[in-house]
């Protein structure tokens, strides 16, 4: 169809009572991009997706999907989504369910096409209540993709899948995206984001803390973190050390995000012998998120 306008989220915010689930999210996705929305549980990924789909009304900010309001884009069959949790309705076969859903859209895939795409052909005649967890997810993928949408949104699609099922699932996603479609998927697995997205938008505590090519984000959150007490040294100086990709000060302490922590540690100790209380942590995602989003880092963010 060739859409020039992509997806625009502007200053999106949403609170549930006292909890600020999403705080001022700005994302712009070009048509045809595959973007991962990466973040730990509670980062605000699902709320952001719900607002993108028009399932949740934002407190502030705006959403535009191919230049349209979400509801208008949905009415034209431009959007398909696999929501985070969800089962299938029972007492129908997989083929019947997909046929039922296809009927709702203006220009859907044929039922056979989407069953093949989602790898559901072998289970097409099974009743939906008799499927395994992985098979259910495949059928949910078929239901999400049946409208032949321009934008496919997947909210943690591989949660509760085993490794093999997971691999098969991403093969289907890739086959779909290869038709020039836009895909946005949420995940809390760095490896998935790295392997299947062109771009990673990293979210934590309701904000976007990083946005860039997968390789860049991976270096940033996949490395290690050095923490040291080192008063009176500006973070900018430390950023010049080899292997360091990020530096912040926290009172008397400094936190260095490192692509190569060995080189960084050697250089740090020789250049600043006064550094003490050294700590090197593997930056698991959770850890990396926390480092990236701890309250003291907000100064530059706001």
């Amino acid at each position: 169809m060739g859409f020039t306008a992509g997806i625009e989220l502007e200053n999106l915010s949403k609170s549930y009572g006292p909890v600020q689930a999403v705080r001022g999210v700005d994302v712009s996705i070009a048509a045809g991009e595959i973007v991962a929305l990466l973040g730990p549980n509670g980062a605000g990924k699902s709320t952001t997706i719900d607002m993108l789909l028009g399932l949740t009304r934002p407190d502030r900010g705006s959403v535009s999907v191919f230049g349209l309001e979400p509801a208008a884009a949905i009415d034209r069959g431009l959007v398909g989504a696999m929501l985070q949790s969800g089962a299938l309705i029972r007492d129908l076969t997989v083929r019947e369910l997909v046929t039922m859903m296809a009927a709702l859209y203006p220009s859907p895939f044929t039922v056979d096409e989407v069953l093949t795409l989602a790898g559901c052909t072998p289970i097409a005649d099974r009743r939906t209540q008799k499927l395994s967890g992985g098979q259910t997810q495949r059928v949910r993928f078929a239901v999400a993709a049946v409208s032949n949408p321009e934008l496919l949104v997947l909210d943690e699609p591989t949660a509760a899948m085993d490794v093999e099922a997971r691999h098969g699932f991403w093969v289907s996603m890739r086959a779909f995206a290869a038709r020039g479609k836009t895909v946005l998927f949420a995940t809390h697995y760095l490896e998935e984001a790295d392997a299947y997205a062109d771009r990673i938008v990293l979210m934590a505590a309701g904000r976007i803390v990083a946005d860039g090519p997968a390789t860049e984000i991976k270096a940033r959150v996949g490395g290690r973190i050095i923490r040291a007490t080192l008063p009176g040294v500006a973070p900018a100086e430390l950023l010049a050390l080899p292997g360091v990709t990020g530096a912040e000060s926290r009172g008397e302490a400094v936190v260095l995000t490192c692509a190569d922590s060995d080189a960084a540690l050697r250089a740090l100790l020789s250049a600043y012998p006064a550094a003490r209380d050294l700590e090197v942590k593997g930056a698991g995602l959770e850890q990396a998120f926390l480092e990236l989003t701890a309250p003291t880092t907000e100064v530059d963010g706001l």
Partner: protein
Amino acid sequence: MSRGAATYTRYELLRTLRSTRFFLFSLVFPLLLFYLIAGGNRHQRVQGIPLPLYFMTGMAAWGSMMAVVSTGARISGERQTGWNRQLRITPLSVSAYFRAKVLTGYLMALLSIALLYTAGLTLGVHLSPAKWLTMTALILVGLVPFNVLGILLGHLLSTDAIGPAMGGIVSLFALLGGVWGPLGDKGFLHDVSQSLPSYWLVQAGRSALGGDLWPGRGWLVVGLWTAVLFRLAARAYRRDTQRQM
């Protein structure tokens, strides 16, 4: 109805026909009970009505009430599994969704009614075509509040709770409405009975016999129950969708 919504409704219907609950409560039980009660007493009369006719309408009322209230079980199931959210990201409109649900409920009710009529014929129920039609029309009108009741319960209750709740509520309506036999000709229970839409469902048989429609009171009771339940259902629906907003 658009072609898409029609196809959607067709599968909704298929899915309902396959559910064991519908099969047992709306078809099998009413039929069995009809033969048990009316089989040996086919020449007696209840309130001046031939007993097979009375219990044919009674059991048709019970089965069809169950059929339309069961809409609630499907709504509750769809809320619980998140299917209603999946539907909200399709072009299916809210009104088309409810039309499909109500239409399915009614077609299932008609199936239940047709089955009981057939059973009635085997026990010698004999009416003119016009009277069959009048009786059916009255039953369909009397089912309106129960349809709305199903939608209300579907938005209030969890899937675990709704089965027993529907069974209990419909049984109570059935009992007090005189499905199992009239509750006297006067007195407190009779007054309560006359204020329930289920009473007028059962009375559809008597009306048909006399060739008259319901008296004013029947229309009033059915109308009031519909209006009140509709208000409650609309509120439950709004609350349910806003909680997700």
